[in-house]
């Protein structure tokens, strides 16, 4: 892409400000009191402390700015900290922005970007014991999926492929998505093997992009006269052991389970009934199998039934609980620091009824976004949102 990371950030900030103004708030960047930056990887940006250079370019000098870096969960964690900025009263109006480059990494040997991008990610593995073994993102995540399969007989390769078909397909209706595709289960199964049993089409593509949200506290929302605001009602996050081998159960991802329970509890929702309490879930589908496991860990279906649930159409756009209606990471691309902020923003657009062609039916007025990342998906964050109607409903 022919933009720098700070130029991407400027574009997203401008879009968020435009959206705020179209929804009743007359604000400019000068009204934003603080910024929380979600930026994962210095090597992608070719710049350490990229937040301070972004801070200059988006005109946020002389105000607080904090950078969050939590692997693939950077976006979700950034929303969590931006939420705490406004909930604590430290700021009334906070810019929550994620950004990431990556295509500037370049492997001279093969004349392509991908192996060098993967290399820049691989330094996120433990450098002493795990990096020297050739551990990378896909082989790390596939470990949980394989262990889950050993324990629960689920998800099968076909069930995983259904996620790729669904999310690439959902992306067809999202003009901002970077990877829309009409494909079949067979196409996924026939795509080249990456690491057993993940095939290329089971994996999201790394990408570069920026996403921004503007967070305000209740008083500021009223003062600005925001029409149809979306409220963050629950925030949960948990880091499980980044050494997969230290986990008692490799097939159950406790970062997901604990983050979800924490967020639902704060929002007054029930882990065991969550599927009936929300309209949309924007999940972290970096790898197709990981999405299936998340159906179980986030409480949508019992353990072992995630694969069956997608076969029955549960997470489809017109299903019981649409998952990744925007296309998710597989359909939109994974611009790491921006991803969880995009997912949260997409869920908010759904609740506002502004999601465009991929709008889902909103009845309960509640949605979640979900981010995971790091070695063995050690980081997880879950955000629960509600529209005005959703706040009132039991």
């Amino acid at each position, binding site marked *: 892409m*022919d933009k720098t990371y700070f130029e991407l950030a400027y574009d997203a900030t401008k879009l968020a400000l435009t959206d705020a103004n179209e929804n009743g708030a007359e604000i400019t960047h000068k009204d934003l009191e603080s910024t929380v930056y979600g930026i994962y990887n210095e*090597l992608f940006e*070719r710049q350490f402390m990229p937040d301070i250079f972004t801070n200059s370019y988006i005109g946020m000098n002389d105000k607080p700015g904090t950078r969050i870096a939590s692997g693939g969960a950077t976006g979700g964690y950034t929303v969590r900290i931006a939420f705490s900025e406004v909930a604590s009263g430290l700021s009334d109006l906070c810019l929550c922005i994620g950004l990431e480059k990556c295509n500037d990494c*370049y*492997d001279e*040997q*093969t004349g392509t970007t991908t*192996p*060098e991008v*993967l*290399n820049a*990610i*691989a330094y996120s593995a433990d450098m*002493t*014991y*795990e990096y*020297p*073994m*050739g*551990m*990378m993102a*896909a*082989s790390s995540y*596939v*470990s949980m999926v*394989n*262990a889950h399969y*050993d324990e629960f007989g689920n998800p099968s390769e076909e069930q995983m492929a259904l996620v790729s078909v669904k999310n690439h397909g959902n992306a067809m209706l999202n003009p901002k998505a970077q990877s829309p595709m009409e494909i079949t289960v067979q196409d996924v199964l026939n795509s*080249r*093997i*990456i*690491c*057993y*049993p993940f095939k*290329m089409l089971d994996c999201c593509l790394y990408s570069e992009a920026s996403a921004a949200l503007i967070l305000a506290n209740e008083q500021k929302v009223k003062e600005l006269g925001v029409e149809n605001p979306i409220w963050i009602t629950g925030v949960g996050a948990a880091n499980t052991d980044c*050494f*997969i*081998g*230290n986990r008692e159960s*490799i097939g159950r991802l406790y970062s997901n389970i604990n983050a979800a329970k924490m967020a639902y509890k704060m929002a007054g929702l029930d882990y065991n009934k969550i599927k009936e309490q929300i309209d949309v879930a924007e999940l972290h589908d970096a790898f197709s199998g990981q999405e299936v496991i998340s159906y179980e860990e986030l409480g949508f279906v019992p353990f072992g039934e995630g694969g069956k649930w997608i076969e029955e159409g549960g997470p489809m756009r017109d299903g019981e609980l649409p998952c990744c209606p925007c296309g998710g990471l597989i359909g939109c691309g994974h611009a790491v620091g921006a991803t969880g902020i995009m997912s949260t923003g997409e869920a908010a657009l759904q609740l506002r009824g502004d999601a465009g062609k991929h709008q889902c039916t909103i009845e309960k007025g509640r949605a979640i976004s979900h981010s995971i990342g790091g070695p063995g998906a050690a980081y997880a964050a879950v955000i629960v949102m509600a529209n005005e109607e959703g706040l009132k409903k039991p």
Partner: protein
Amino acid sequence: MSQKDFQDHQIRDEIKISYKYTMGGQSKFFIDLMNEKKLQGTKCKKCGKIWMPPRINCSDCYENTDWIELPQSGTIRVSTIVWYTTSDFIQNVPYGVAFIQLDDADTALLQGIFSENLVPSKVKKGQRVRAVFKRKEDREGKMTDFFFVPEDEYESWIEKPEYEGGK
């Protein structure tokens, strides 16, 4: 500036940093691996948990640990075979990696899994494996000084001139 006028200017660059970094309290693991082909874990003085990779402090109970030599056989808890990877490892594909729980250990170690017949069924959960080491002159006190093979392939791997059996 219109899209038509825009020209993309790209610069070739590289970030390169050299290190001489300490293994700190874990040093004994690497020294004994290199010199004696030992796999040294640690055992918590309080709860008795056996850590591999080793930690000189138990993260569960904030107590010190003692070094304990572990058996060189273990069981695969989970594995994968990698067919596409990073620029540093792409010349090695396909390669197997597995979380291996050494007998007596309470945690599992990530290691390379080599096999004459590298297929998923050969490196699946429950597979018994045994450590094989590089020759003394090739060992550097690094994780790459050893790897694991399925138990029934052990004899044929240690017959290769570049490798040695363990203790």
